[in-house]
């Protein structure tokens, strides 16, 4: 128990340090030109470091994460897996609700609040996502997105150990959420220090399984997986910040090329 506690507080200190580090850096990045994921600029001044962490993550994935996720997938029947995902999502709905409010998205806040009540009461503590069928679909929101909605630029691209692709802005979001998650705070204060850790680990395994298709695809098809993950992550985050709406006037241009030759002979 004590060792678990110690680890938790270590995690918190690490998150705090990360947050403090990220804040001013994200601020610095404001000075630069805001880049879109569509631009050729990869927004990756720390690429050397990032590639090292990426390499480390690949090894960790090969040795531990993927095997664990595979066991998780094999042992748990599909409905149980879905229920675990539903449960984890329900646990995070207070945070989603808070972020929707912070973003001024009243519709979204209504959606998140309704989901939490409906699934907690009618979905047996969140094990079943009955709200989805009632017109309240799951929407993923986090504090990184909120910062984006507030106009904070993404800051340099970052690869976090184990957690993977991120940015200064999104890492800041992760740090802030680590401290403000009501479920974790409640658990900690009541002496259930194992709750945040177990929850974090399960969320990680679930996420690894959720992204399995994409990860396998990139590994099969890419000639520079690092660059492809970076591009996927940045485009995805930009889309999440817009809640899936298409960018106003900021979509990629698909010009007609004057110099495109005819299809070469095969």
């Amino acid at each position, binding site marked *: 128990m004590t060792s678990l506690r110690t680890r938790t507080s270590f995690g918190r200190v690490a998150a705090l340090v990360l947050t403090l580090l990220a804040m001013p850096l994200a601020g610095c990045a404001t000075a630069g030109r805001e880049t879109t*994921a*569509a631009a*050729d600029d*990869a927004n990756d001044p720390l690429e050397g470091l990032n590639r090292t962490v990426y390499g480390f993550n690949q090894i960790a994935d090969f040795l531990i994460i993927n095997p664990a996720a595979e066991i998780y997938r094999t042992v748990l029947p*599909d409905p149980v897996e879905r229920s675990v995902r539903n449960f984890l999502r329900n646990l995070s709905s207070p945070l989603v609700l808070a972020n929707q409010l912070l973003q001024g998205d009243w*519709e*979204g806040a209504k*959606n998140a609040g309704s989901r939490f009540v409906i699934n907690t009461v009618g979905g047996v503590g969140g094990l079943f996502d009955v709200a989805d069928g009632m*017109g309240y*679909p799951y929407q993923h929101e986090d504090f990184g997105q909120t910062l984006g909605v507030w106009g904070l630029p993404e800051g340099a691209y970052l690869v976090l150990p184990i957690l993977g692709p991120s940015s200064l802005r999104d890492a800041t979001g992760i740090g802030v959420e680590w401290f403000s998650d009501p479920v974790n705070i409640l658990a900690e204060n009541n002496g259930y220090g194992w709750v945040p850790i177990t929850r974090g680990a399960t969320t990680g395994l679930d996420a690894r399984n959720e992204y399995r*298709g994409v990860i396998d*695809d990139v590994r*099969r*098809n*890419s*000639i*520079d997986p*690092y*660059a*492809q993950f*970076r*591009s*996927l992550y940045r*485009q*995805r985050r930009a*889309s999440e910040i817009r809640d*899936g709406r*298409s960018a106003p006037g900021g*979509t*990629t241009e*698909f010009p*007609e*090329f004057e*110099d*495109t*030759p*005819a*299809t*070469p002979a*095969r």
Partner: protein
Amino acid sequence: MTRRFFLACAALLAIAGWAAPPALAQSADRGAAGAKFIQDLGQRAIGVLTQQNVSRDEIRREFRAILQEGFDVPYIGRFVLGRYWQQATPQQQQEYLQLVERMIVDIYADRFAQYAGQDLAVDQNLKILGTRAEGETDTIVSSQIVPANAPPVAVDWRVRDRDGRRKVIDVAVENVSMSVTQRNEFASVIQRGGGQVEALLQALRQRVRAG
């Protein structure tokens, strides 16, 4: 919210197709034609992929033929090289286009096969949700692909109309553009290779040899 929005779009599209007065227009026509183009393309692709008693090589050959017909592969290849196209010598451009076309067809075929369930009819598998005009020549056809055992995936097809000849020039999965991703990746390979297009060609050659 999004679901309702999509439903509204679908309903609008249906109404536009049936009841729009001719004056109401070209863009609705273009949208309907684009939607039909994607629907047909999806139907044919799934038809090929789900054939019984046909060798895998034959299926692959037919699928490639459909891709070449429905997608502007040379355009996509040119797009994903971005500004480095001008840097390449004519020979490099030639070689690049040959290599990249193979790669693009491979990747699109791979992805399509991953998403398309083996035993579902196309009208269950690929749902057209709506269309919107993008500039003078392009139509974005929004669709949903519903895999057998997974949540639906939002897929937007960018269809370019050149005097009535339609071709897909980009596919965005959950708002992530395949062309943009590829362009970013190629740019990275070239930058890491000292800004030389040759570095990319080398990687592509290797990939084609391995594949």
